[in-house]
């Protein structure tokens, strides 16, 4: 009993002391990261642990919907997530995101100005940009010698069984809608019906649907062109420089991935530290080195210019990582269509189920 009399005050004292402790080093010893797979360099995580002593647990998902499914079902324990634009909208509406304390993320200033305050989070209350990119046409110019400028050309009979497209109803139907001149985020049943008919006409040309790794079909010679993510095109280009990336006249899609903190995160402080670290220019360059998406970090790009000129050249030289300014006018984000999601799903099912 005597020992207990000593222990309790010591413990309380220790707690008090630690609470008063330095503001720099966080109390958390680990942070749970839940993000896209193959999206955060191991070197970055290790650098973070070295700097702060906080261990990073990196769990992965392969789609926004998987992330949402887990969060909506009540899974907790994650501190940092990387939702895309429309996912931030949905999670915000459902109150599943914590508000960010931007004062704890001083590196936020490194983000390019035109990428701050996006349409889905105008005050950066819940998210800061991580990477961004596009989905457009990748063309193997060894097999397709004449230049392609419109999506409409995909319907050419000469491309029979030569096309790969993403297995993504918003991307593919959205592309068809743009070819028809409609809004790619439409909720109009008549327009969707038209898109369905048009897409069915394209089916003979589509060799496969693949959202995971369309570059494989391109590189293996199974297809000669396709609607793919910019990252896929960039990797393919790295293996075969003949692979070009084009945003056709009708337009293409643009996406933004962001760092956010889910509601009820157990290590909020560490989460803020982590996000701030990711926005550090050196860390951001690590991302650019490993994963070829578009980087919103202006300070990182400046750093690349001087310190990593080869990387800078590759990054700036290819449209997949560095889209030309004239593309911006015809790039449209994918927005949540609310209740019409059911309608879209129905159309997609009819296209694929009608075979």
């Amino acid at each position: 009993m005597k020992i207990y009399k000593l222990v309790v005050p010591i413990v309380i004292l220790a707690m008090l002391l630690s609470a008063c402790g330095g503001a720099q080093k966080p109390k958390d010893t680990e942070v749970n990261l839940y993000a896209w797979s193959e999206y955060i360099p191991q070197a970055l995580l290790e650098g973070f642990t070295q700097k702060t002593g906080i261990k990073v647990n990196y769990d992965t998902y392969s789609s926004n919907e998987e992330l949402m499914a887990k969060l909506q079902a009540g899974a907790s324990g994650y501190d940092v997530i990387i939702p895309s634009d429309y996912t931030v909208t949905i999670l915000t509406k459902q109150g599943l995101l914590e508000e960010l304390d931007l004062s704890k993320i001083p590196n936020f200033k490194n983000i390019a100005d035109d990428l701050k305050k996006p349409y889905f989070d105008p005050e950066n209350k819940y998210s800061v940009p991580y990477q961004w990119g596009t989905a457009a046409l990748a063309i193997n110019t060894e097999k397709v010698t004449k230049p392609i400028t419109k999506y409409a050309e995909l319907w050419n009979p000469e491309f029979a069984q030569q096309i790969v497209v993403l297995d993504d109803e918003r991307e593919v139907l959205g592309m068809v809608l743009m070819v028809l001149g409609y809004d790619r985020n439409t909720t109009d049943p008549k327009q969707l019906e038209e898109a369905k008919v048009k897409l069915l006409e394209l089916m003979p040309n589509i060799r496969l649907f693949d959202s995971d790794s369309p570059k494989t079909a391109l590189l293996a010679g199974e297809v000669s062109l396709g609607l793919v993510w910019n990252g896929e095109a960039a990797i393919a280009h790295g293996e075969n420089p003949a692979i070009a990336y084009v945003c056709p006249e009708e337009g293409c899609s643009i996406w933004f991935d962001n760092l956010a903190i889910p509601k009820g995160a157990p290590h909020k402080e560490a989460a803020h530290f982590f996000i701030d670290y990711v926005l550090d220019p050196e860390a951001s360059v690590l991302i650019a080195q490993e994963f070829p998406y578009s980087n919103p970090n202006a300070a990182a790009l400046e750093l690349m210019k001087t310190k990593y000129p080869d990387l800078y050249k590759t990054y700036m030289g290819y449209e997949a990582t560095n889209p030309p300014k004239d593309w911006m006018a015809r790039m449209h984000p994918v927005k949540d269509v609310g209740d019409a999601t059911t309608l879209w799903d129905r159309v997609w099912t009819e296209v694929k189920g009608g075979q």
Partner: protein
Amino acid sequence: MSNIQTGKPALTRFSLRKTLRENPTAQGLALISPTAIYLLLFMVLPMILVVLLSFMIRGPYGNVVYRVNIQNYARLADPLYIRILVFSLGVGAATTVFTILIGYPLAYFIARTPARQRSFLLFLILLPFWTNFIIRIYAWIMILRTEGFLNSVLLHMGVINVPLNILYTPTAVLIAMVYEFLPFMVLPLYTSLEKIENAQLEAAADLGARPWRTFLRVTLPLSVPGMIAGSILVFIPAMGMFVVPDLMGGAKTILIGNLIRNQFLVSRDWPFGAAASMLLLIITLVFTLLYTRKAGFGEELLV
């Protein structure tokens, strides 16, 4: 203290041991209880959640709105979904048929090798499945694609002039599906075949039956339980499979597995997905119970 005077039997304490020893029903219950309890907790209860979910509807953000209705089931009564269901049944059936065609002779072969070699041969069948699923399928893609192994070899040997178009067609899907489900057919078939006693076969031979007749009249019927078990283990999961059809078939068709997955992971219409699952569950459950009862599986009576 016994009651010798009254002649009535002494009031014995309820003995669990005795009951278990003597009462068959109690024995049965005791044996099934671990499974029953476990499945009740981790299968039935979660499934009840799914049943409840199927009567809700989707909210505007893909969340669940707790308002009971049968909207989802009404939606399912549509030719589009029936077509998808039927097509999936077809895939399951085709896979089952071919796994039997390939698996039966294989199981028969193993059952007839010397006893000490049998487990080795069985392990050999399962060993490939301890590699990773994705790279197994990728291997098939490498074999079957236009510039893949099969075409390269055949072209080189002059057997064909133009590469065969196998990948991203139903043929490729079938090849890979049968590949993935073969052990599920071979193992139960083997356990059934292995049990057939020499004595029975010899008796048939003694009575003048030629080998084929013995097979048809003795072996085949006795292996039916194995075929049933195998068919269930192949047909039902094959019907709900979508990863292999997507990877090998180019994701150009929607099977019931795709449909359900899409509801949960794309359109985020969980209630509808739950309803579709319920439909699948009921159909296959009815089918399975009928099939097993009719074919004599589970007809064994009491001890």
